[in-house]
């Protein structure tokens, strides 16, 4: 038996930077699906988690073969809720909407915005307990913030969903930690190696739908979407994808600068993450 060679060998299509990122993320999503029982993906409705859903459909040939969970603080922008309902239907998602406990129940020693953000962690932990997910896919990136830079693609969480960043397992050669002692679960981070501008370039190339709040209106736009009361727009005139990308090529303002909780104390964000925040 001999392999039949094609008559003409077409010119090799080189993979560009976005192709490389996509292939890596697809590989990670497939590993998670193959190895983890009871998997779900977090959907914050923002640009990053939209890319995660898109990559999921790439990985599974148009399907999203696990539940899509929105941990809802109840304080998102109306545009976000409209977006959620529309695309959950259009993409045929198995959508789970999970509520968050009131702010009064959160650690009072946290600064105000971090305390508000802690609701999401609490809501997430409740949802995890309710559904017993072994794996949770989240669209965080290393370049967003210092502690996220230290993450693994497959990041185990111990009792109470805590992240032990000082003793993370080694991760190399695409061999991820895919089995766990009882009582633990894993966060899967398929976008870890992407940058903010990669997300925008890919959104543009793939024509991925997006909430309008990212585009400038009256000289301001949102670079990052959180709760209405703790997220502020940044000054910008970028009203198209091209303009946003151009803006990011030249800006030196940090992406999460509009997120109040990141700036309240040196370690506020780290404390949130150790407790299970994305």
């Amino acid at each position: 038996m001999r392999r039949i060679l094609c008559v003409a060998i077409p010119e090799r299509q080189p993979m560009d930077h976005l192709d490389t990122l996509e292939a890596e993320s697809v590989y990670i999503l497939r590993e998670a699906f193959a190895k983890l029982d009871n998997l779900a993906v977090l959907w914050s409705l923002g640009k990053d988690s939209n890319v995660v859903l898109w990559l999921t459909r790439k990985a599974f040939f148009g399907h999203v073969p696990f539940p899509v969970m929105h941990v809802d603080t109840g304080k998102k922008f109306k545009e976000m809720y409209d977006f959620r309902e529309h695309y959950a239907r259009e993409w045929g998602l198995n959508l789970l909407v999970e509520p968050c406990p009131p702010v009064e129940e959160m650690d009072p020693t946290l600064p105000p915005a971090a305390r508000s953000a802690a609701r999401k962690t609490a809501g997430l932990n409740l949802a995890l307990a309710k559904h017993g997910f072994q794996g949770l896919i989240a669209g965080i990136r290393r370049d967003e913030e210092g502690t996220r830079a230290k993450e693994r693609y497959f990041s185990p969480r111990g009792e109470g969903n805590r992240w032990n960043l000082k003793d993370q397992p080694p991760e190399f050669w695409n061999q991820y930690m895919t089995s766990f002692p009882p009582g633990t679960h894993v966060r899967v981070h398929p976008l870890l190696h992407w940058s903010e501008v990669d997300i925008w370039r890919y959104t543009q190339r793939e024509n991925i739908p997006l909430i309008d709040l990212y585009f400038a209106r009256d000289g301001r736009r949102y670079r990052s979407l959180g709760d209405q009361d703790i997220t502020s727009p940044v000054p910008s005139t970028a009203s198209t994808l091209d303009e946003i990308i151009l803006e990011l090529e030249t800006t030196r303002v940090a992406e999460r600068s509009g997120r109040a909780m990141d700036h309240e104390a040196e370690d506020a964000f780290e404390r949130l993450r150790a407790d299970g925040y994305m």
Partner: protein
Amino acid sequence: MAPRSSRPQLKIVIVGHVDHGKSTLVGRLIHDTGSLPDGKFEAIEAMCRRRGMPFEWAFLMDALQAERDQGVTIDTTQIRFTSGGRDYVIIDAPGHKEFLKNMITGAAMSEAALLLIDADEGVREQSRRHGYLLHLLGVRQVAVLVNKMDLVGFDAGRFGEVVETYRGYLEGLGIAPTCFVPISARDGDNVATASRRMPWHQGPTVLEALDAFRPLDRPVDRPLRMPVQDVYKFDARRIIAGRIEAGRVRVGDEVMFSPSNRTGRIRSIEAWSVPEAPREAHAGQSVGITLDEQIFVERGDVMSHLDDLPVETNVFRGRLFWLGRRTLGLGDRLRLKLHTAETDAQIQSIERVIDTSDLGSREASEVERNAVAEVVLRTRGLIALDEHEQDPITGRFVLVEDHIPVAGGIISMEGYPDQRELITQRSTNITAVGHGVSRAARTGRSGHKGGVLWFTGLSGAGKSTLALALEARLFAKGYEVYVLDGDNVRGGLNANLGFSPEDRAENIRRVGEVAALFADAGMIVISSFISPYRADRERARHAVERLASNGEGGLSFHEIHIKASLAVCEQRDPKGLYQKARAGKIAEFTGISSPYEPPEVPDLVVRTDLMDVEECLHDLVAYVEQHFVHQR
């Protein structure tokens, strides 16, 4: 400047002994290339002032509170900067021995490395170990930076000494560093711009050294390797998914999956939301393919072309670094992960432990934490792999213990044969003899088709009892039927085989081949063996299907699970074997000290713990009449 997303990107790692200045260099690189976000420099300045200390570049990287308090980088962080039209992702790997696993995490994903040595302290333990690990991890481009030249008065002589010592070491490993650069990371000498304090240095700056690194080529021209990640049946398509690690594949290519050794032809390359369906795919792409016909393929198989197959083996040599908290010993059993395959493995021998400080080696019976050693590994089943020299990705493995990766290593087959030759390849000068009597003619005379009823189950489940009773019942009904069991096989055909895992596998392989021949002769064969491993049963199935595909079809293989719980079998214990196994008198007894892998999708399950013999026989006879009777 080209837009960021279309600019090339290079991943680099910065390694070296603790306190030799890695984090400082990173801070300096980011600042000097203008890659810092606005306000970050000032924020760190203010923080240092608050703490009453001089400006510390390393704080840029050490974003975590815990690190600032301890003054040590704990984990791998990644930061980007741009130079010479290229984006760099730099990974600040820590030098503390304690954090070797993090250094490995960082270095393994890098295309090139900067290795720092303190000019004053000179070459230290971790300088050597990191150099060795870069070599093991496959990082081939290394620039050596001799840092803190300010502490030695920018002395060319001292620089020369360090270079001499370290160059000799690297040459012993077969690494030729791209360059040596004398620097002062704190002050920026020879980092972004040439130092006026070291006019004697004629070589490149750090940025020039970086720009000399080349991105790694994707191995598109090597033999095709696609480890199967999964098989999807979300819709009408049955898609085999995986990443092509080497080579390329086109629609229409004939491919083989190892070690299941099935072949098929690529019908399509599937993709979602692309302008047109691809006709070709190559190394680096995560793809999905469909085949012309449905063959059994599973995660861990490697897809290749037929003329360049991977090695099939259950034993190989590994050169590994050991990260486990305990020492690694002879006979230890661990979980082996190799591309997408996963299996149990045992340390069959520890050949030598390598001293990374002088590259010497010594005999040893165990491997200490963070040491490098050469071992021989034996896996439970056959796996498809390559020698690391042939293909780095299918030629490396990770060992896992208690869920945690504890070792990584590269593969050599030196002294061990490719078992594909031994097990599956038939001599090329034997042409299958076309039988003068057709299968249809045989069926027409006997009134039923040939095939194999493969009984599998625990010892004591009732396989032999049912096999002999079924044989008698079917014979009485006029079937051509024969039982193969330990009694008639062990005495002759397999008289030379013992009970080691290899011999057991070979025992089952021969039974499978003989059963296939009997079936081809038109008989119904009932084989009655524990056959605990799925892989062995799959091979038996394959033996029948191979013959079936040579003729006009009509042969079939039926996996029948003769099932009773372990407790029931142990209670029955007709031969007293469980008792002996519990007493430790029988090693590797299935169900007690050796695993039983139940069929995933058996053709029939016979519950001997819920039904009596007559009920079981009734089900079996009904099954045979449904599947074997020739429809006239």
